[in-house]
């Protein structure tokens, strides 16, 4: 296949484990299979150059070798918002408790209570908030990092695999009036959006 003229497809799967969905429709394993299967189909059967954009580092061992993986997880982890949350919720309490943590059973108990409290704050307060902010944050990172490697003007189709991917994909749609940007997982380059 002539790589220069091959159609190009962007599969956006920022959250393949569907960790941001309170009640995901499918199990994460199945969602990974869908993404890998779809990207592989476009690469193998349609002869397309496929770019896969994700914010998850693991789970891509079975991905077709022809698919280019763009990972945003490192950029996301370094974002000031996440750094601030880790500092306030985990690091600072740990620093406060550290002097007494190794002083007998009481200290150990206090340290365990500190760990549990931090995790609870993370799960109960931060994650519900981050669920709504993360799509915007990842869209911002994607715009900065990915567009250096992927020219949206040359794309035939953008397939959006989860809700976390929506703001970035919608931004692409608004910037490129002719581009098909869809949540439909049709295995065809010409299918309607």
């Amino acid at each position, binding site marked *: 296949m002539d790589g220069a003229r091959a159609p190009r497809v962007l599969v956006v799967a920022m959250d393949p484990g569907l960790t*941001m*969905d*309170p*009640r995901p429709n499918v199990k994460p394993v199945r969602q990974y299979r869908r993404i890998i299967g779809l990207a592989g189909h476009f690469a193998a059967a349609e002869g397309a150059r496929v770019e896969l954009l994700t914010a998850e580092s693991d789970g891509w061992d079975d991905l077709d070798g022809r698919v280019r993986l763009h990972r945003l997880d490192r950029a996301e982890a370094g974002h000031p918002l996440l750094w601030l949350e880790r500092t306030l919720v985990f690091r600072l309490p740990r620093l406060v408790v550290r002097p007494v943590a190794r002083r007998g059973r009481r200290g150990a108990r206090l340290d365990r209570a500190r760990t549990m409290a931090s995790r609870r704050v993370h799960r109960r307060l931060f994650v519900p908030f981050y*669920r*709504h902010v993360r*799509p*915007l944050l990842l869209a911002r990172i994607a715009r900065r990092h990915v567009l250096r490697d992927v020219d949206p003007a040359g794309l035939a189709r953008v397939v*959006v695999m989860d*809700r*976390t991917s*929506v*703001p970035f*994909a*919608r931004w692409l*749609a608004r910037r490129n009036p002719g581009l*098909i*940007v*869809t*949540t*439909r997982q049709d295995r065809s380059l010409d299918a309607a*959006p």
Partner: protein
Amino acid sequence: MIPMTERRPRLLYLAFYFPPSRASGVFRPRATANRLAELGWDVTVFAAPLPFLHGTLGSVDDKLMETIDPRITLVRPELNRFAWQTDLREYSAFRGTFPQLAQSLYTWGQEHVFPEHYASWARAAVRRAVRMHARRGFDVVLATGNPFASFAAAWLFRKLTRTPYVLDYRDSWTLDQFSEEPRFEDGHPAWRWERRVLETAANSLFVNDAQRSWHADRYPRAAGRMMTVLNGWDADTLPETTEPPPAARAETGGHAPRFSFVGTITGQQPIEELVEGFARAREHSDMVRAELDLYGYFGFFKGAETVLRRRFNAGTAGGDGDERVLAPGVRHRGAVSKTDLGDVYRDSDVLVFLNGGGRYVTSGKIFEYMAAGRPIVSVHSPGSAAEEPLRGYPLWFNPGGLDPADIAVSMVEAAKAAAGLGERQVAEARAYAGRFERNRTLEPLVRRLAELAARGRRAGGR
């Protein structure tokens, strides 16, 4: 017919699926609205918005619009297509920016307001109905489901305006007609809503007695107002008289028996048994050249075709790369407009009644089949609700189950019967079907609507 000097009774008909939709549920509302308009009623139908039918469902037969009485007022309240949007350009700015929050709010509405994606249509319908009612009052409301949001709209409209309403269950809401089990778990809001709408309805209609009994057992306080109004065949889309089948008109030995199925192929139908049974029937010496033509769509919505086609090809190879050939002798002839069905029936020797589901599923198509005056071979599980009207039909061939060998025997017998049919036998079959002509089956509903409208006018001094 209502005298011109008298004020015409005014009906609000909440029928989401109405022409040009080609969903199987449009024929009953189409016939009901036309019949009432013909009897002098002032009918206003609230139906699905066209962009939803054309763009989202892709399920339209424009010729059906020509069969709607021009005196009927058609209103199409808007529908929020949140659940169907796949093109990100259609997303609102809010959904595009905060997709998780938008989904959470939508899900909350489904769980706490009304458990159906059509709820926004019902809200819009009530808003528009109240405005129209303020200008000129409706006497009675008829709501048909699915979608069942139309029931909720009728209930809310009654709460606001005291206008009585009648519910027409074309399908059941909380009963899965195919598995014959409740569709929702205990505590699901659909149960609460169904109780609420049934208990305040002036009447509720069901398409067969089995469905009516199931609902009467569940909702005893509404049981006394439940009625069965059968489906029927529409005289305006079939010729007045029928001639014997082509096999009876052809010279002996020169005719290949023509079997036809007319309707929508769905996943619930016993497709494999039909294909196997027909293949075995073709092993009979008189049936070697027999053909089975399928007229209609695969599934009600776009996207269903591939899966259903695969079920035909699973056991047998298709033919010569022609995608219309589904199995040896079985050909998909495509969709035929309701208005052109007369020709299809005229050119068929035997009609194959392929139907999914059991005692709760009648299928409106069976009445049209009987009116065609052709031998009918049943391909459905025993105990289907369709057996009740078929029992008196003189040209019914019932294999008694889904064993392909029995289906084959019935097909061979039906083809033989078709070849020997005379005008008198066809006329007898048609005469039996006459009792299911739509205007006759609708009579109890029309009478009841007239009573309710008259009572409302007396009470309101209108």
